[in-house]
């Protein structure tokens, strides 16, 4: 497979990044198949919940409330977690978080570390940093192992290897684990992974995890997963470091009742995820004896400060939006040039980049609204997309090179026309005359220059009719008199 760039600072713009994907039938087949399977399961389990909409409303309220009082809840979490024997660290950006984690690993004299369930670590590019500092990192989530051993990039936030099919997994495992006779039977593949993992779990006493939720009331951390590898990773090691974005906090333990019902159904189409791990600080003689939480800002408080965009942080990383998205279904995750793909990635990534990078992402949507409908915490993604689009336009329209950009020029001219009906009508006439040369005998346009060519590359356009509606109306009114 081609090299995939998921650092938004270096990734190509979305319209370019999609091209290799759209020309890769195997990849598209893998993505569409995986998405359709998840969507069918989700639809069935959402339908059986008669209180689904009420749950969404409750979850949205809980998340909004948590964000509006984030400072207080984070401090409460820190106090409770510390009282229970954990240590809380604050990192304002990716660099600080990476160095903090490396320092903690050095205190442990760790040259190897196991990892589970942390998209946030991908956001801060932790693995390459630790590898460069001489710490070997081993992923323990099945999908993450496939990606790490295959040297591939994640394309989904819940099912990160969704774009890889079984025979590709077989090839990776056979090559990297030295198992020449491995078949692509799922049982055999799972056994191979299990064997590989057990050695890591038993040998490496230091782990890094993510967090699905931080509970302010009790200081507990929650991780949900399907495989049990997370449970191993969270309980076997001597030392556990949890990396979590500051937005992950929930006020009360009771709030999990709402969140867990929504999360499993939205994410994997299950009533309940198989493993839900909850722990509070350290417990003598049980589980890790040293526990650190690194709370990461990395642009989040800036998002929080903008009322129209704040809702982005309500996200609980279920991926329901990307599973519902007709764009994602065609492109998969890599085209988004970010570890956060799909509709949520299209709004989160440019914001995390302070709008300096990933400006093509807010436009990577047909605004069909399927994401908003699916979102269990009711993030109005189309609304945020539009807000970000207007910010990008405000950046770009100041650039001299954009002045003659056909789309910008067209929209500026259109605005002028829409201000005066007579001018609009004159432009309709000019358009009809101007397009005549492109209109074939059958009355259709098959080719247009410039921006129009983007349309006619796959679609015809019916030639402009001889009479507009308002002309017809005026003629009729005259006749009636």
């Amino acid at each position, binding site marked *: 497979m081609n090299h995939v760039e998921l650092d938004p600072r270096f990734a190509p713009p*979305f*319209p370019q990044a*999609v*091209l290799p994907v*759209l020309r890769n039938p195997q990849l598209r087949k893998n993505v569409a198949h995986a998405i359709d399977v998840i969507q069918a399961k989700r639809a069935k389990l959402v339908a059986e919940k008669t209180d689904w909409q009420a749950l969404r409303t409750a979850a949205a309220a809980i998340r909004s409330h948590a964000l509006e009082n984030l400072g207080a809840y984070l401090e409460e979490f820190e106090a409770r977690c510390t009282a229970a024997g954990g240590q809380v660290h604050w990192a304002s950006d990716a660099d600080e978080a990476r160095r903090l984690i490396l320092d903690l690993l050095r205190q442990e004299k760790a040259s190897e570390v196991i990892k589970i369930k942390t998209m946030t670590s991908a956001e801060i590019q932790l693995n390459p940093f630790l590898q460069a500092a001489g710490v070997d990192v081993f992923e323990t989530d099945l999908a993450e192992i496939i990606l790490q051993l295959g040297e591939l990039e994640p394309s989904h936030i819940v099912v990160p290897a969704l774009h890889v099919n079984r025979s590709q997994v077989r090839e990776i495992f056979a090559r990297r684990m030295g198992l020449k006779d491995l078949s692509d039977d799922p049982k055999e593949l799972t056994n191979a992974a299990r064997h590989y993992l057990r050695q890591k779990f038993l040998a490496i006493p230091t782990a890094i995890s993510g967090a699905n939720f931080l509970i302010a009331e009790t200081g507990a951390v929650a991780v949900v997963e399907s495989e049990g590898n997370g449970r191993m990773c969270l309980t076997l090691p001597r030392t556990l470091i949890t990396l979590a974005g500051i937005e992950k906090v929930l006020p009360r333990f009771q709030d999990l009742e709402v969140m867990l019902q929504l999360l499993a159904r939205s994410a994997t189409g299950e009533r309940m995820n198989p493993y839900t791990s909850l722990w509070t600080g350290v417990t003598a003689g049980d589980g890790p004896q040293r526990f650190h939480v690194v709370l990461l800002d990395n642009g989040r408080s800036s998002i929080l400060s903008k009322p129209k965009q704040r809702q982005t942080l309500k996200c609980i990383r279920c991926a329901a939006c990307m599973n519902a998205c*007709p*764009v994602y*279904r*065609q*492109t998969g995750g890599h085209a988004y040039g970010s570890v956060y793909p799909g509709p949520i990635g299209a709004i989160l990534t440019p914001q995390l980049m302070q709008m300096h990078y990933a400006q093509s992402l*807010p*436009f*990577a*949507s*047909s*605004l*069909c*609204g*399927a994401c*908003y409908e699916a979102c269990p915490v009711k993030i109005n993604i189309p*609304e945020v997309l*539009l807000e970000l*689009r*207007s*910010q*990008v*336009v*405000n950046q770009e329209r100041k650039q001299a090179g954009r002045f003659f950009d056909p*789309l910008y020029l067209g*929209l*500026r001219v*259109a*605005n002028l*026309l*829409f*201000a005066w*009906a007579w001018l*609009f009508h004159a432009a*309709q006439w000019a*358009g009809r005359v101007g397009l005549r040369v492109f209109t074939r005998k059958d009355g259709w346009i*098959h080719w247009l220059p410039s*921006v*129009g060519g*983007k*349309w006619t*590359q*796959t*679609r*015809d*356009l*019916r030639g*402009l*009719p001889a*009479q*507009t*509606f*308002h002309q*017809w*109306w*005026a003629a009729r009114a005259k006749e009636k008199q």
Partner: protein
Amino acid sequence: MRASLFITCYNDTLYPETGQAVVRLLERLGVELDFRSRQTCCGQMHANTGFRAEAYSQAKRFVRLYQDAEAVVIPSSSCVAMIRDQYPGLFQELGNEALRQEYAALLPRVFELSEFLIDRLGVEQVGAYFPHRVVYHASCHGVRALHLGDRPYRLLANVRGLELATLPNVDRCCGFGGTFSVKNAEVSSAMLAVKLQDVVSTGAEYCTALDNSCLMHLGGAMHRQYAGMKTIHLAQILASTEEAQAEAAQ
């Protein structure tokens, strides 16, 4: 009953036959229609592309133009969605209090065509005759923004001679998305290909919708691919009668 027709900029330019059908249909149902010649655009194209100030000036124009209308009928669900969902934000950000109040007073009188027929006029049986196999494309704005629900199906069910085909993945986007179709033309085309497969699989003669924008997208691909299916706005089906069919046949 009096009503004002907001034809929308692209229907005026590209699909006058849809406007003519709305006039025939509503006048047949006893509605006295007026058409304000100063109308242009609702501002959706600008708003959806990030040109908020421009969208605002068109929004202001729309509200001013129709403030005294008894009802405004719009044969395009995405334009109605623009007016309902995006105007409040635009006026909040850029408008003054007087304009916000004018808008709030006008909003309950703005109707998408199927809403106007069913909710305002209370008719499902409009006396239409259209002896063809038809598939209905539920546009994204109709389904998820306006929540039109079964309104279009109820109208279609009452058309004599019409055989309604079932569209698989009915609520999936056709990939048009306004300027998305040119800014991200390749993805848009990939989405269109998938949609077209579903639409063509129904074996219908016509694909109908309440948005000519989706139909322009689907119809453009049908024509390019010699798909053997035509697009038609729902208003044109509802306006069609036995006499009109006979006339057309002659």
